């Protein structure tokens, strides 16, 4: 058991330099602003004197290493600067909007996995069969779809033509009252207090954006499931299991599938990278009040502190997700030890 803790501690230690790198990159991005930030922050009617004041206030008159340590100190205190457009600290803006993004992303992920994994298994059962070809066409089409375009197409079909979807504006129609803030996830919050009307209202708003995001992420999951299943099915222990006279479903789901799941979990890291990016576009299409649309609004109004805060938050989130994936991987598979790799 101690070996396992060691493995996990190792993995966490490995993540630290990456986090450091992320912070350095985000510092560089902050300093690479076009033009002089002091002039920018001082506003339209600035004099030389007020620009100098702003420069001192922002610490821009100090040397780069000094600025870096100030930046680091601010980060540790959770200070990402002020947003120009909302007038609030960036960190509180992000914290308020993060649950909306997470709710969308996680729903889409669950949806994508529940379709893509069976699809991949089905394709791997009979390589070269009709199911396999359907799977391949689906996968290639899936990666070619621009997320924002799929979203608009779905809105046109289900909102304008058929009229079963609500208008693509945010998380909840104005008819409903926002559920009390418990977790920030509308579905969970409304279910917790037993407000099913709001629950279904929120669910209706969530369906189209979640499908849009899921369509985009299904492709890599299905492709990986198929490949992993094929590898597992051709291995010796499956032949042994078959020779021992186990039923087909026992061999397929009890042995092959469980082994195939491991590489699929590893690809989830890559899938998350795509998802967090695509999230921005989907949020824009559906006016979803998450951190992606916040960043887009900030970009349009040149609100750089907000954009950099968003980039940093996403990167940290992504590093954490990868860490969780790797740790759960080592918990699921007893054969994995990180010392073997180094």
């Amino acid at each position, binding site marked *: 058991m101690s070996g396992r803790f060691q493995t996990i501690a190792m993995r966490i230690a490995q993540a630290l330099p990456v986090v450091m790198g992320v912070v*350095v990159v985000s510092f560089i991005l902050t300093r690479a602003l076009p033009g002089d930030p002091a002039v920018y922050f001082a506003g339209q009617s600035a004099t030389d004197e007020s620009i100098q004041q702003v420069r001192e206030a922002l610490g821009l008159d100090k040397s780069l290493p000094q600025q870096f340590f100030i930046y680091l100190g601010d980060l540790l205190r959770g200070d990402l600067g002020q947003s120009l457009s909302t007038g609030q600290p960036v960190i509180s803006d992000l914290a308020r909007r993060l649950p909306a993004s997470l709710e969308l992303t996680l729903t889409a992920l669950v949806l994508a996995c529940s379709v893509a994994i069976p699809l991949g298994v089905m394709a791997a059962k009979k390589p070269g069969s009709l199911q396999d070809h359907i799977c391949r066409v689906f996968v290639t089409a899936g990666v070619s779809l621009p*997320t924002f375009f799929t979203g608009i197409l779905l809105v046109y079909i289900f909102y304008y033509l058929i009229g079963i979807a609500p208008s693509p504006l945010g998380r909840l129609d104005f008819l409903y009252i926002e559920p009390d803030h418990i977790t920030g996830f509308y579905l969970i919050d409304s279910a917790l207090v037993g407000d099913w009307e709001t629950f279904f209202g929120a669910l209706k708003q969530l369906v189209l954006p979640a499908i849009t995001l899921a369509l985009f992420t299904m492709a890599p999951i299905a492709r990986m499931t198929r490949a992993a299943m094929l590898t597992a099915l051709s291995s010796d222990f499956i032949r042994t299991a078959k020779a021992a006279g186990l039923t087909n479903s026992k061999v397929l789901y009890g042995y092959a599938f469980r082994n195939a799941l491991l590489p699929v979990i590893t690809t989830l890291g890559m899938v998350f990278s795509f998802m967090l*990016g695509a999230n*921005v576009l989907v949020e824009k299409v559906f006016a979803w009040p998450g951190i992606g649309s916040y960043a887009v609004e900030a970009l349009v109004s040149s609100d750089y502190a907000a954009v950099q805060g968003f*980039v940093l938050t996403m990167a940290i989130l992504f590093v954490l997700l990868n860490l969780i994936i790797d740790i759960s991987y080592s918990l699921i598979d007893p054969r994995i030890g990180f010392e073997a790799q180094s």
Partner: protein
Amino acid sequence: MSDKVISSEPSFSSHLLYVMRENPVTAISFFMFAVLLFCAIFGPSIVPYDPLASNTSNALSPPSAAHWFGTDNLGRDVFSRVIVATRLDLSISIAAVALSFVIGSFLGACAGYWGGWLDAVLNRILDTIMAFPLFVLAMGIVAALGNTVENIIYATAVINIPFYARLVRAEVNIRRDAGFVQAAKLAGNSDARILAFHIFPNSLPPMMVQISLNLGWAILNAAGLSFIGLGVRPPTAEWGIMVAEGANFVISGEWWLALFPGLWLMFAVFTFNLMGDGLRDLVDPRKRT
């Protein structure tokens, strides 16, 4: 199945024909690519209308014989705009992929061949780039460098470098001590020469697949960035912007504004995804007959 260096080939065109006969999907994808190239090169001179000329008396008219893809809110011809945009979108993605191919190959080849601290440093840098969700990093770079088309190209190039560098590094690394490399060394070739002309060409087949898939991503990426208002500015015709502008009219039923640029964008990405395997057949030395 030993590794060979690409040398005096029989004839490129006969090989191309052979590959296309072997696999009809490849032939189709090459044909689709030819269509895209044709639009990119001759598009501006063959389209029926000026892509920027507005005609408000004929705004928002649905597809018809005169306007195949209809007209937009300013009365501009959507068909002309979609075709003309091909050049811009293809240039952005090809420039970005070319940049990341050159930089990524160079870094990856050096790291794979010499190893040591060079390799360690490069790996840490690549890890850091990969630690960002890629589209988000591209957003951050464009926001920091300024909102121009060139910066979209640089941002797309940066986020793709790790894929090339990793691939080349692995391919070079496994051949570092191969027999043909030692033979070349004994024959008196310099390290740089061996790396460039003996080892590196062997990593081209998997790279070709990567390039093709990457071109698809790069187009999606660039269109996505301009969809959220970065890089290309209106009234320039570009697929992402056209979809973004059209999105406002989809809710009121004017579907053609967003549909056609979106479909054309999909067509381009689909072409590059299909072409991947075909390109591998074309450049793989072992497939030559």
